C-alpha cells in the first residue's frame, strides 16, 4: 500500500517513567493477577473461617510479634522507597545507587524476621485447615517478598555496572519501587488475617 507520512516522531524521548512506560503497565498487570491470587487465598481463608464455628479449631493463638515487626519494617521501608523513586525519576545515579543498597537491606531485614514468623504461628500446616491456610498465606507473601528482594538485589548490582547508565534502568528502578509498594500493601490485610482474625474466634 502506498504511504504518506503525516507524522514525525523523531523527537520523542526513548524512555518514560511510571505509567508512560509499558513495563509499568506490565508490572501493574502482574500485580493485578497476583493480587487476585492473594484475594482468592484470603477469600478461601475467610470462607473456611465463617464455615466453622470457633475458627482456629482449638489451635493456640499465633504469636504476633515477629509479624508485627515485619509489618513495621515494611511500612518504614516505604519512606526510602519513595525517596528512591524521586531520584530515579531525575536519573540521579549517585543517590539511586545508595537508595538501591538501602532498599536491598530493607528488603532483607523483614525476610530475616520472616524466618521467625513461621514457628510463631504455633501450628503446622498439616495440623488442620486453619494451620494450612495461614501457612499458605504466609508462604504466598514470603514468595513475593523473596522474589522482589532478589529482583532488587540484581537491579542494585546492575546499577553499579555500566548498564546502569541508561534511562531504561531508571525506569526499572521506578517499577521496582512500584512493586515493592505492592508487596508491602498486600501484607497488611494478610497480617491482619493471620494474626488478628484468629484472636476473635
Amino acid at each position, binding site marked *: 500500500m502506498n504511504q504518506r507520512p503525516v507524522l514525525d516522531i523523531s523527537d520523542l524521548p526513548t524512555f518514560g517513567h511510571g505509567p508512560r512506560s509499558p513495563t509499568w503497565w506490565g508490572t501493574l498487570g502482574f500485580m*493485578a493477577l497476583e493480587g487476585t491470587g492473594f484475594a482468592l487465598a484470603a477469600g478461601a481463608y475467610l470462607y473456611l473461617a465463617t464455615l466453622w464455628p470457633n475458627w482456629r479449631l482449638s489451635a493456640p493463638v499465633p504469636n504476633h510479634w515477629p509479624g508485627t515487626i515485619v509489618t513495621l519494617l515494611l511500612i518504614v521501608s516505604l519512606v526510602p522507597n519513595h525517596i528512591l523513586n524521586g531520584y530515579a525519576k531525575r536519573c540521579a545515579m549517585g543517590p539511586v545507587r545508595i537508595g538501591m543498597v538501602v532498599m536491598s537491606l530493607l528488603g532483607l531485614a523483614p525476610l530475616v524476621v520472616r524466618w521467625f514468623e513461621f514457628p510463631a504461628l504455633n501450628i503446622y500446616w498439616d495440623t488442620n485447615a486453619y494451620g494450612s491456610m495461614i501457612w499458605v498465606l504466609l508462604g504466598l507473601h514470603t514468595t513475593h517478598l523473596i522474589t522482589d528482594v532478589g529482583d532488587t538485589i540484581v537491579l542494585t548490582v546492575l546499577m553499579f555496572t555500566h548498564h546502569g547508565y541508561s534511562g531504561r534502568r531508571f525506569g526499572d528502578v521506578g517499577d521496582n519501587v512500584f512493586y515493592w509498594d505492592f508487596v508491602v500493601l498486600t501484607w497488611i490485610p494478610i497480617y491482619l488475617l493471620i494474626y488478628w482474625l484468629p484472636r476473635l474466634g
Partner: protein
Amino acid sequence: MSSADLTSERDLPPERETSVRGDIAPARDGPRDTGMDDASLHRWLARTWRTPPGIIGALSSVDHKVIARRYLITAFLFLCLGGLNAVAMRIQLSGPQRGLIGPDLYNQLFTMHGVTMMFLFAVPIVQATGIYLVPLMVGTRNIAFPRLNAFGYWVYVSGGLFAWVSFALAMAPDVGWFAYVPLSGPEFSPGKRADVWAQMITYTEVSSLAVAVATIVTVLKQRAPGMSLDKIPLYVWALLVTSFVVVFAMPAVMITSTFLILDRLVGTHIFNPAEGGDALLFQHLFWFFGHPEVYIIFLPATGMVSSIIPAFARRPAFGHLGLVLSLIAVGFLSFGLWVHHMFATGLPKLGASFFTASSMLIAIPNGVQIFCWLATLWDGRPVIRTPLLFVFGFFFTFVIGGLTGVMLASVPLDLQVHDTYFVVAHFHYVLIGGSVFPLLGAAYFWFPKITGRMMSERLGRWHFWLAMIGFNAAFFPMHIVGLWGMPRRVYTYPAELDWGNINLFISAGAVLFFLSFVLFAFNLVHGALRGTPAGDNPWDAGTLEWATSSPPPSYNFTRIPVVTNVEPLWAERGALPVASGLRVDARELIISTVAEAHPDIREKSATPSIWPLLAAIAVGATFLYSIFTPWAIIWGAAPIAVTLVGWFWPKGDPEDEE
C-alpha cells in the same frame, strides 16, 4: 521464517557497533526511516528485526508471528489428540456394555479430552490468534514483552507434553477435567495422576497469564498513532477484554490446583472437612475460574465474528459501541455466575436463585452482540465465502447452545439436566458452536495473511457442511439422551435403558465430525503449499493487518500507520497515512498514550534470546519434579533464578542501553 526475511546477506547494512558508555547522555542517533526509500528501509528493518539463523536462533525467536505460528500448530495438534480421545470414547459408547475400553482407561480418556481441549487447545489457540493478529491490528512491530511471550509458549508446550507423556504412561489424570475433591484428593486418587492434573494446570496457566499481560500492554500502550479507544478494532477489544478476564480468572484455577497439590503432597487440610477444610471450596474456587474460562474461549471468537462479518457484509459492524460495551459487560458478568455449576450441591435456595438471575442476565449482552451482527448482515448482500459460512454455522449452533444455557441457568431445571449428556451437548454447542466454528472461519479468513496463500474454497465448503452435519448429528441427540437419564462420564450403560441406538447415531456423527477435521487439515497443508497466492488484502477488509504484505515481514510495517477510522483501510483507499522518525538500526517502536493513542515514547523492543527457553525448561523441570517432592520448589528456585537473571541482564544491545 517468512519470505520477507529471506533477504540476501549482501544487501544488509553493516553490523552495528556496540558501545560502552560511562554516563547518561542524550540518545545517540542511529539512522532513521525519515525519507528513506522503501528498498533500503526494508533492508535495514529486516536486518534489525530478523530472527537469528540456526536452531539456537529459531529457539531464541521473539517475533510474535513466529511464536504465534508455533502456538497455532501446537494447539491444532492438541486438538487432533483431544479429538482422537473423543473418537475412542465414542467407539466405546456406541453400544451398551461394550468392553472395548475399561473404566480405568476411559476415565483417563475423558479427563485428557477435557484437559486437552480446555487448557491445551481452546485457550492457547484463541490467545495465539491474538498474539498473531493484535500487534498487526494495532499497527505495531512486535507484541509487548516479546521474551515473556516466547517464554509463555515454551511453558505451554512443555505443559502439554507433560500431560500427554503421562497419558502414554497410563498415569494421566482420571478425575475429570474439573477434578473435584475428594475424588482427586489424597485419599481417593492414589499415585500421581491427580498431581499431573494439578501441576499441568498451574503451569500452562502461567503461559496464559503471560500472554494476557503482554496482550493488554500491547493494546493499551502500543497502538498506532490515532487509534483512540473508539477506533480499536472489535477483535482487539475482544482480546483485551479476554485478557483482563484471564488476569482475574486464571489465578483462581492456579490457587485451586496449588491447594490440591498441597493437600496431596504435604498434607494440608484445605479441602478436608474433618479438619476444618471444605470440599465445596474447591468447587467455588474452580468455577470462579471455570465459568469465566468459557468466556475466555468465547469472547475472542466473537471478535473473530466481528472481523469476518464486516469484511463480507461489506460495511463496518453495526453498533460498534454496543458491541464493545457488550464485550465488557460479558467480561464483568462472567465472574458472577459460577455457582450455576453447583446447583446440585444443595446450596441455600435463595442464593441459588440469585445465581439464576445473574446467569440469565449474561444472555442480554450476548443477545446484543447477536442482534448487532444480524443487523450488520442485513445491509445489502453478504459475500458468501467459507469464513462467512462458518459464521452462519456459528449462529446456527451457538444460539442453540446459548438457549440451552438459559435452561441450565434455571435452578430447578438444572437439577434434572446437570451432569447429564444434556450438559455435554450444551457446552459442546457453546464451545464448538461458539468458538470452534468462528475459529475455523477465522482460519479461512486469516490463512492468506499468515501464509500468503489462499485455502481452497471448494474444500472449505465441503469442510463446512461435513462439520455442520457431523457436529449436529453427534451433539444434538445428546440433549435427548441426557433428558432420558444418561449421566455424563459413564464408560458404559446397561442395555435395558434403550440408549444404544441413539448412542450409535451419536458415535457416527462424532466420526463424521472428526473426518471434517481431517479434511480441514488437508486443506491447510494443501493451501500452505499449493494455494493460490493471496496478495496483501484478498478480502478487501478494513483493518490494519491487511495493510502489510502477506505474510507480514518480521517488522510488520515499514512505517507505522496513523489511524483515522475504525476501518482504516476503507477510509484511506489512496495512501495510508504513516508516521516517520523511528530508528531502523534498533528495534524501536512507538509507545502511545492509553486513551488517545498519542505517540509518546520511542521505546526499544527486546531482541531474540535463548533465556526464555532456558527459563521455561527450569520452570518445567521444577514443576515436573514437584509432583514427587515439595522440595523441588526449593531446589528448582536456583535454576529459575539463574535463567531469569540471564534473561533480564542487559547484553549490550542498543535495545538494552540508553
